[in-house]
């Protein structure tokens, strides 16, 4: 096997184009990690430069399925953002959070456990950052009412949002990207990732009980402050709320059925956003559209073009050959390396550029292994499937390792600092890293047991 792979490496021409693309790719990633210039600016400029220099043509960058911008990812993200932006003023998110605190009867650990679970479940369907931005303000209020240290609550919610986001296709951008490249549908993620994420979440709640559970006590009169809150007052627009919930139900049904209906997830999301815009009675859509995270969206666009260039010149293929040489074509070993390497890489660098690079790398690896296959037969080769799931699990859960591993962590640390409770890099890692390793161990056992022992 090793020999066969080595012989194919001859096809890569390491000419001027190869070195220009590779240099821009490495420089762009280095600058993104360095964080002195905003990552979106680097990605957009790097992409433009590659087109100007003719490494990729504009046609390839804008329209090619293999080399260009993955519009499936862009439209799925922007459509979900629009739906959430329309729903926000209804007060439904405030309602859910206040209700959760009251269900917990104002008892601190119960609040932590319920808030973490709610965050995980909501994150499975909405973007993690959005979820954290919706739950954290209420958490700060509740902790103020109960005179509790807010830091453990904020950290556990950020971690829970990354765990929950891993469960579905739409939960976290890496999954959206993997689904689009590997042509995996919503139900495939439910079938392969959701079960293990439920186990990870249960283990996580038990772990935080041991870490934080004993320290928190609250006086009875303070609990009354929480119990006196009336969650029904949160709902500001019942009519819009009903419309939003209907559209959300339609969209979720669409996701469940999109494989059968032969519709891409982005089509389903775009339909949901369009329908809600239509029936919400919004006269001027400028505000809800402007509030989408345009900076992240342009980051994706730039990144896709940069990755397209290094795929085109053969860098990714060269890397995939090296990975296979390293693992001697042992696919179980490769899966485990992909999972653990992804987890530690994502703990320190943005998992979005990481997955953007790994997707074509895995496809190139598959092409080396099964040169006679193409299309779905290649992407969904039974021996390749555990690789996709290992990548998704590693890249999403790995974000929990450090304060900069995932956007949700960055948001939470920023908010805590603004409230006068700074969380140091070390302090976050002290909780995040062991909990991340715990979750990846569970996933490792799961992948091994399910795909290599039981083979189901």
């Amino acid at each position: 096997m090793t020999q066969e792979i080595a012989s194919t490496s001859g096809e890569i021409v390491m000419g001027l184009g190869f070195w220009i693309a590779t240099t821009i790719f490495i420089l762009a990633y280095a600058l993104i990690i360095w964080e002195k210039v905003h990552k979106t600016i680097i990605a957009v400029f790097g992409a433009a430069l590659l087109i100007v220099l003719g490494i990729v043509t504009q046609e390839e960058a804008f329209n090619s399925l293999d080399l260009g911008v993955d519009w499936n990812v862009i439209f799925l993200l922007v459509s979900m953002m629009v739906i959430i932006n329309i729903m926000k003023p209804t007060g439904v998110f405030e309602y859910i959070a206040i209700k959760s605190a009251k269900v917990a009867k104002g008892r601190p650990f119960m609040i932590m456990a319920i808030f973490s679970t709610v965050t995980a479940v909501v994150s499975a369907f909405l973007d993690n950052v959005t979820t954290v931005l919706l739950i954290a303000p209420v958490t700060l209020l509740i902790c103020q009412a109960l005179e509790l240290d807010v830091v453990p609550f904020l950290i556990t919610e950020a971690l829970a949002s990354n765990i929950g986001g891993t469960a579905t296709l739409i939960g976290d951008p890496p999954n959206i990207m993997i689904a689009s490249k590997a042509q995996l549908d919503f139900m495939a993620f439910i079938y392969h990732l959701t079960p293990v994420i439920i186990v990870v979440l249960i283990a996580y709640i038990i772990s935080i009980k041991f870490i934080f559970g004993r320290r928190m006590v609250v006086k009875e009169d303070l609990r009354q402050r929480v119990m006196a809150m009336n969650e029904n007052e949160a709902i500001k627009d019942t009519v819009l709320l009903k419309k939003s919930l209907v559209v959300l139900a339609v969209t979720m049904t669409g996701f469940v059925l999109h494989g059968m209906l032969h519709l891409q997830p982005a089509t389903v999301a775009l339909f949901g956003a369009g329908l809600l815009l239509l029936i919400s009675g919004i006269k001027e859509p400028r505000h809800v559209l402007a509030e989408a995270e345009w900076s992240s969206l342009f980051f994706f666009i730039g990144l896709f073009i940069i990755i397209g260039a290094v795929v085109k010149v053969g860098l990714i293929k060269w890397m995939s050959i090296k990975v296979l040489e390293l693992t001697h074509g042992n696919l179980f070993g490769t899966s485990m390396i992909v999972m653990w390497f992804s987890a530690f890489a994502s703990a320190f660098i943005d998992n979005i550029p990481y997955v953007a690079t790994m997707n074509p790398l895995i496809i190139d690896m598959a092409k080396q292994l099964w040169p006679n296959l193409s299309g779905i037969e290649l992407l969904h080769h039974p021996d390749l499937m555990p690789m996709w799931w290992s990548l998704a699990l590693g890249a999403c859960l790995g974000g929990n390792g450090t304060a900069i591993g995932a956007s949700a962590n960055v948001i939470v640390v920023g908010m805590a600092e603004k409230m006068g409770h700074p969380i140091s890099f070390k302090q976050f890692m002290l909780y995040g890293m062991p909990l991340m390793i715990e979750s990846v161990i569970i996933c490792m056992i799961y992948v091994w047991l399910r795909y290599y022992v039981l083979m189901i």
Partner: protein
Amino acid sequence: MKAKDIMIPFKDYLKPDNTLSEAVNLLKGAARGEAKIGVMGLPVLDDKGKLVGMLSMTDILRAVHPSYMDMMNLGDFTWDGMLESLAKQVRDKKVKELMTRTVIIVHEDDPLMECVDRILKNHVRRMPVLDKTERVVGMVYLREIFFAITKAMLDEK
């Protein structure tokens, strides 16, 4: 008329290192013209007498209002005593942490229409008046401009 014709001569001011409890005391007892009836906002001057900011009552309100409440609609879920306990927590914060740093100003020879333009466009109610050497010489208040408008409207000539 010009800004200097309606301005109240400069008297009280805050220093960047004043605490909020000192600041509210000054706001409460500051002179407005002849009477010491308190003002809604004061300029902040550094040791060299240079204008570095403004602190208004709105800034004090913002100091006790937790920033997380800006992010969501949580006003319905506050409790009796919350404001008082937060006020106690922020009383030792410094003026420089909460003042508005980009101050909207006018110069003493600016016409009144310029004052109106700045007040409307920047949503302020008072502006320090500076002389040619950029020193604060007075304050122009919304009320004084209003009186100038009233006078012009009611003037029969």
